[in-house]
Each structure stands twice: as structure tokens, then as C-alpha cells.
């Protein structure tokens, strides 16, 4: 009797769990806008999940950061490549590579942390040539935190800059677009690089 009861109760709980988990992963819908937060509250934090895994659109570019420092005497260092040394290390190690290379990719990804609903609203506004909804306070906070993290990371990757006493640090984001599939055999095809320089941040605020 106890065995049967355990099985029935357990199966019911499992059913509820999978219903909530599947709902949390469902595409945006009116039902999800209304009840999605409730499902996430039940699952969070120990059963929070995200199974997009390179979907719906995988990255189609090489993105990273460069960084430079401003010294007490007013001079500025050249930009340091603080992304590729760890990427190269990862490429050489096929068996459980260190996670160091994810600091930049993870940091850049968290700059874009937003809500799928807001994403869709902005997409529709852009398609209709309407003014796009500006970032909401929580999005700004998330971006600021990610920018601070990237600056702090960069600072640790250029210990020799300004003889170890930089005053400020600036991060440059770059996105190197891959040539599209349709032009894969075209040697003349362009692979443009876009860059965005973030604000200078005082070193004292990063420590």
C-alpha cells in the first residue's frame, strides 16, 4: 500500500514539475506573459533551466573586448587584447578546457540580459519604424553591472599598464561579422568589424 501511495504521489509531483518546466521553456505567448513569472517562482532557483542551446539563432560572429588604461600622468596606453589569449588556450585544450575564456563571452552576454516580451515589443517597433522602447531600469542595472565586470576583468589582464597604477580603464566591444553562407566561396566578401567604446571607469570604483 505504501509503495503504491509513494508511486502515485511521486508521479503526481513529477507531473507538476514537468508541466511547470515545459511551460517555463515554451515560446512567448499570452499565457506565458500572464503566468510565466509564477512558474519561474516555483522553479527558481534550484530548478531554473534554459535549453535554447544555440537556438533559435546561433551567434554568427566573433565578439570580444579590448581594453586600455589612462595613467596618472594623463597618457593613455594602447588597447590590449584581453580576449584572445584565453580563447587560444581553450582551442589547444579539447578535454575540459578552463572556463577563463567564458569570462568575456559571459560578461558580454549579460550586458544584453533582457525580457523576451520586451525584446518582441522592440522588434515590432523597429519593424514599424516607430521609436524603440528605451532600456528599463532593471535592464540598465544589468548592463552597468556587466560593464563594471568587464572593466574589472580587463584591469586584471593588463597588470603592467601604467606601471601597475592605472587611474581609469576603458573597454572596447568589438563584433567581427562572419561572411554569410551565400558568400562563403567569395574571396572578396567583406567581414566587417563593429566597435563600441564604453565609458572610462575609475579604477578605484572597480576594486
Amino acid at each position: 500500500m505504501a509503495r503504491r501511495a509513494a508511486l502515485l504521489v511521486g508521479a503526481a509531483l513529477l507531473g507538476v514539475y514537468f508541466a511547470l518546466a515545459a511551460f517555463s521553456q515554451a515560446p512567448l505567448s499570452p499565457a506565458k506573459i500572464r503566468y510565466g513569472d509564477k512558474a519561474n517562482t516555483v522553479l527558481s532557483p534550484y530548478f531554473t533551466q534554459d535549453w535554447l542551446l544555440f537556438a533559435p539563432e546561433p551567434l554568427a560572429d566573433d565578439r570580444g573586448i579590448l581594453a586600455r588604461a589612462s595613467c596618472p600622468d594623463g597618457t593613455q596606453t594602447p588597447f590590449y587584447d584581453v580576449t584572445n589569449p584565453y580563447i587560444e588556450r581553450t582551442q589547444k585544450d579539447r578535454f575540459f578546457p578552463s572556463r577563463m575564456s567564458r569570462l568575456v563571452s559571459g560578461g558580454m552576454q549579460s550586458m544584453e540580459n533582457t525580457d523576451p516580451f520586451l525584446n518582441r515589443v522592440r522588434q515590432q517597433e523597429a519593424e514599424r519604424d516607430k521609436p524603440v522602447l528605451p532600456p528599463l531600469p532593471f535592464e540598465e542595472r544589468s548592463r552597468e553591472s556587466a560593464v563594471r565586470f568587464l572593466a574589472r576583468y580587463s584591469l586584471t589582464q593588463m597588470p603592467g599598464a601604467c606601471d601597475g597604477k592605472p587611474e581609469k580603464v576603458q573597454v572596447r566591444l568589438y563584433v567581427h561579422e562572419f561572411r554569410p553562407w551565400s558568400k562563403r566561396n567569395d574571396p572578396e566578401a567583406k567581414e566587417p568589424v563593429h566597435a563600441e567604446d564604453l565609458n572610462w571607469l575609475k579604477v578605484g570604483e572597480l576594486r
Partner: protein
Amino acid sequence: MKGMKGRFAGFTALLDRLSGSPAAVAGVSGTRALIGFIGFMFYASNYGERDYLFGPHGVYLWQDFIDGVQENGTFSLYALSTSGAWFELVFHLGMIAALAVTFGVGGRLVLAVHWVFLWSVYQRIPLILDGGDNLAYIVLPMLLLTNCYDRFSFSTGLVRRWADRVPGVVRAMSPALHNLGVAAVAGQICLVYVVSGLYKVQGRMWQDGTALFYVLRIPEFEWPGVSRLLYENDMLVMAGTYGATLFMVYFPLGVLVPSLRPWAALGSIGLHLSIALLMGLTSFALTMVACDLIFLSKGVEAGLRRARATGRRLGGVLRDRKMWPERDAPPVAAEHTGNTGVLTRTAEKMGSISGSTEQADHNAARTA
């Protein structure tokens, strides 16, 4: 009325069958061992940078870490103190717990402890986590329900003695709980596949069959010299992109049909070993493989039996060899050279009267 009674009897018979004996014990034991190993490798592969990544003065600001923990309403052992010694203690204990789970030491209590340490280290810097880590922290509590220490484990005796003290009613529920745990892992892996597959179906690059062309060029996932061979071959790009998407969408159907189940699991293992090798996502890929093992339990069990039989045969062959010392022969006292009795006896049997360690070691090595 009679029909209803019959249906009820059929239902209770089904419940008895599902709660009577544990299913996929070898498979789920393999899942536990492999997830333990992956957890251990998380610590080991970042060992050199542990202070930088996870330490109190690490790259991820302490205050951001504490804010994140509080915002999520969770915990992390690393948040308890800013002392370097505490950090080292928690990190190394976590490493030991992961190793104990890999080798099946300490039973489910240690598995729960491993989850606490792993969750703690994940919370310290969430930026570096991936889908494999996500799957691991979800599946570990599910494994706590199962008899995942029945294979691939060292029994310490202590756990067995504790188990003997568990009340009979609770012990009787063990197969039911085990099967629920196995069903939970199976359901979870199917959810991962279906969600990932269906989102891919919606993506333009996956629809075009060109997604791999872009993914394999991302430097973080590129294998220099090898990836190019794949993404420059149109047929391989298309076959890989469509093959992966179709496989993910139909995986649950594959595991629902018993005759297709091992093939679906083997296909998944093949897919993920390719991902591990080509994209360097070892941790993610092996976590998926670990969960697939529950669908290959019979194969894992048969492999274990064969390994044991081979071990016994090998032992027998070695013992039967002329030079192998008799098992039940009384040990000969070690001589003043420091050799063990067995080594000295072996040396004597081989006609060597030299009592030197070097010669005896050499002879012993020859017998092996």
C-alpha cells in the same frame, strides 16, 4: 461493475509492477559516476585559477556575488566568509566530495553534500556556467531518489549498516522512489532535447541548414585545423545541421519505443562526443551522455558483467602461470633486504638466489 473492478485490478497490478523492482540500476549508477567525474573536472580544470575565479577577491566582485545569492533567495558556502582559508577549505572539500561521488564512496549522503558544494561554487560566478552545469544541478537531486550506488561503487559498510536501520516501510518504498528518480532523469533529458530541437526549428540558420557553418567558426568553439574541414564542406554542414535538429526533436519518440531506445541513446552519445571534441564543450557533452546512460542500462550491465568475467579470467591466467606464487602458501618472512616474503619466494622459484631488492623487483615485474 465487473469491468470497473477489472480495470482497478489492472491499475493496481501496474502500480505493483512499477514499484516492485528498480529499473535501470546500472545505467543510473553510471550517470552518478560520470556526473561526479564531470563535477570533479570542473574543480580540476579551473584549479590554477581558483582564487581568481572563485576566491573572495576574485574577478567577480564579492558584493555582486552576495547580491545575486540574496536576489535568488539561495545560499552558497563561499558566501559565509571572506577568509582565504575558508575559501580553500570549501573548494577542496567540494573537490573531494566530487571524487567520492565518482568512485561511489559514501552513498547518497555524500551525493547530497556534493550537490551543496557544486551549487555553492556555481553561485560564486554564474557567468561561466553552461547548459551542462544547469543539467547537472537539476539531475543531482533526482539521483538522490535512486539506487545509484548499486554499481560502480565502493561500499564502506557504514552506509549498509545505516540502511539496515531504516524502517521496513521506508525500505519497501525504495524501488518506487528509485523508479520515480529514473523517470525524472529520463523526462528531464527529453525536455532538454525537445525544447532545444523545437527552438532550432524556428531559427533561420537551422532552417537553412547553415547553422553549423557559423557555430564552428566562433573562436571559442573552434578547433583550429579541424573545424575548417567541416564548415568548408557544404554537405557536412547541411547534414550536421539538419541531422542534429531532427535528432533532437524526435529523441523522445526514440526512447519511448523500447526497440529504438538503445539506438536513440547511442545516437545521442555520438552527437555529444562530437560536440565535446569539435567544440571543446566537454563538460556539457558528457553531462548529456551521463543522462543518456539510463537508456542503456542493459548494455552497461552487460559491459560490467563482461568486464568482471574478463578480470576473473585474467586473474586466473596469471595465477595459473608457473611463476605465480600459490595463493594459499604461507608467507615467507621478509629478509633483511627489505623484500616481502612473496617477492623473495618468487625470486627463489625463478632460480635466482640473489636477495637484492633490485633483482627481486625485476623478477616480480617479469611475472606481471
